């Protein structure tokens, strides 16, 4: 595919927000790429198959089936969740890509969950590379449940411009973020702090979650804003009295909408991108939890469709592995 300038790309690249500044970093992100001549879906397929045949890790994620929206659900204290979050798509005027994020989520306290993300992506006819890391913390603010439950979220993010994970959309994020060549984008590194106010409620078996997102580049630039909203429900609110795999209680379905709200200087919907889509979750008994969602761009600034899929394991009471045996 030729890489001649495209009118759309030129128009949206003027407000491309994720490329904050150029550094001369000699990090792995700059030099750790290799040529990739095919679409790396095989990686996710292998990972998912391996997940399904791993019988020794009991798991049942209590999180609703969202990819961008956060709910009040925190990791149980002592549990370690390992997740592989995949995003793939073939945006207009860009090569197909697969973005892979390894997520390590640990329940430090019943009111505090901490997570580390390691991100990379591969683009067809381009290259594959490590794009950066994020460290996030979520704090439950109130000690008991209310009609609406707030959770405070703070994250440090160090990712380069080649990142295509779209773990959130803020500011003027747009389809242009998917169109550049990795060689051009990987030296553009953004170090940002991101805060979210997560509001979540669980009326009559439903989960309703709303996120207000604020992001600030530590090297300057204006505050950027975004939003995410999700609603979901398990297909059954009661459990069967016998073990089963494909029964309704193991499935949840819902939908989420998210997008950018520009910056503090031009707050609004101009030159922003927005996505919406249905989501499905399958808790494999005594196995991983699988999430799937096609997410559709809602305007011309958005990629047409982003396909998202996640497989997560929960290692319950991970910290017990480090306790002395006599204390059991």
């Amino acid at each position, binding site marked *: 595919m030729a890489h001649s300038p495209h009118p759309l790309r030129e128009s949206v690249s003027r407000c491309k927000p994720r490329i904050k500044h150029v550094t001369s970093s000699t990090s792995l992100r700059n030099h750790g790429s290799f040529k990739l001549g095919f679409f790396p879906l095989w990686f996710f397929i292998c990972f998912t198959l391996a997940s399904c045949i791993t019988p020794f890790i*009991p798991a*049942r994620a*209590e*999180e*609703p089936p969202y990819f961008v929206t956060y*709910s*009040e*659900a*925190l990791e*149980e*204290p*002592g549990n370690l969740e390992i997740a592989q979050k995949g995003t793939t798509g073939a945006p207009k005027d860009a090569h197909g890509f697969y973005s892979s994020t390894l997520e390590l989520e640990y*329940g430090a*306290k*019943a*009111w505090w969950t901490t997570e580390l993300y390691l991100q990379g992506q591969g683009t067809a006819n381009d290259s594959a590379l490590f794009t950066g890391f994020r460290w996030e913390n979520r*704090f*439950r*603010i109130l*000690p*008991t*449940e209310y009609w609406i*439950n707030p959770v*405070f979220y*703070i994250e440090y993010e160090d990712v380069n411009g080649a990142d295509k994970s779209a773990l959130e959309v803020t500011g003027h994020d747009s389809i242009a973020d998917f169109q550049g060549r990795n060689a051009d984008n990987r030296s553009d590194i953004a170090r940002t*702090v991101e805060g979210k106010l997560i509001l979540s409620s*669980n009326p009559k*078996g439903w*989960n309703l979650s709303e996120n207000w997102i604020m992001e*600030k580049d*530590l090297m*300057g630039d204006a505050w950027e804003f975004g939003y995410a909203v999700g609603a979901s429900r*398990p297909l059954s*609110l*009661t*459990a*069967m*009295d*016998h*073990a089963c795999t494909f029964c309704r*209680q193991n499935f949840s379905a819902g939908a989420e909408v998210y997008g950018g709200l520009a910056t503090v200087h031009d707050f609004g919907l101009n030159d922003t991108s927005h996505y919406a889509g249905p989501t499905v979750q399958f808790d494999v*008994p*005594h196995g991983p939890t699988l999430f799937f969602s096609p997410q559709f761009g809602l305007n011309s600034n958005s990629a047409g469709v982003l396909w998202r899929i996640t497989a997560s394991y929960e290692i*319950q*009471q991970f910290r*017990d592995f480090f*306790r002395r045996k006599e*204390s*059991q």
Partner: protein
Amino acid sequence: MRVQRLALFVLVLFALSTVALMAADGSWLRRVPAADRQRINPYAGDPQAAAAGKLLFAENCAKCHGNDAGGRHGRPSLRSERVAHATDGELAWLLRNGSLARGMPSWSSLPEPERWQIIAFIRTLPHDGPQPESVRRQ
């Protein structure tokens, strides 16, 4: 300068939330509102619900409280006198709200009927004697 102000802002928020949570500690039984205390388990005495609750317990609770619900690593037994004397409504309140300062998470993301099924199972457990003070405080 901007970075320093941002760092200070984050630190203050963290400190405030930590203080708020630490101050929230207390005996969970005393915090149960009277209306919640009186709630009745719709699945009380239902053997099918108890069987379903047993599976839910194995998946969600056993890693901390033990497969036999006898407690692990200093975490409380659910076969104790205190649990036996608690009303269904009090247990339902604890499952919904947790006791965050003491390490018990909120299970509000589990559908309420499933939480009642777990309580139906807990009611089928045999009772042990009184627990040591160190465990009883949790």
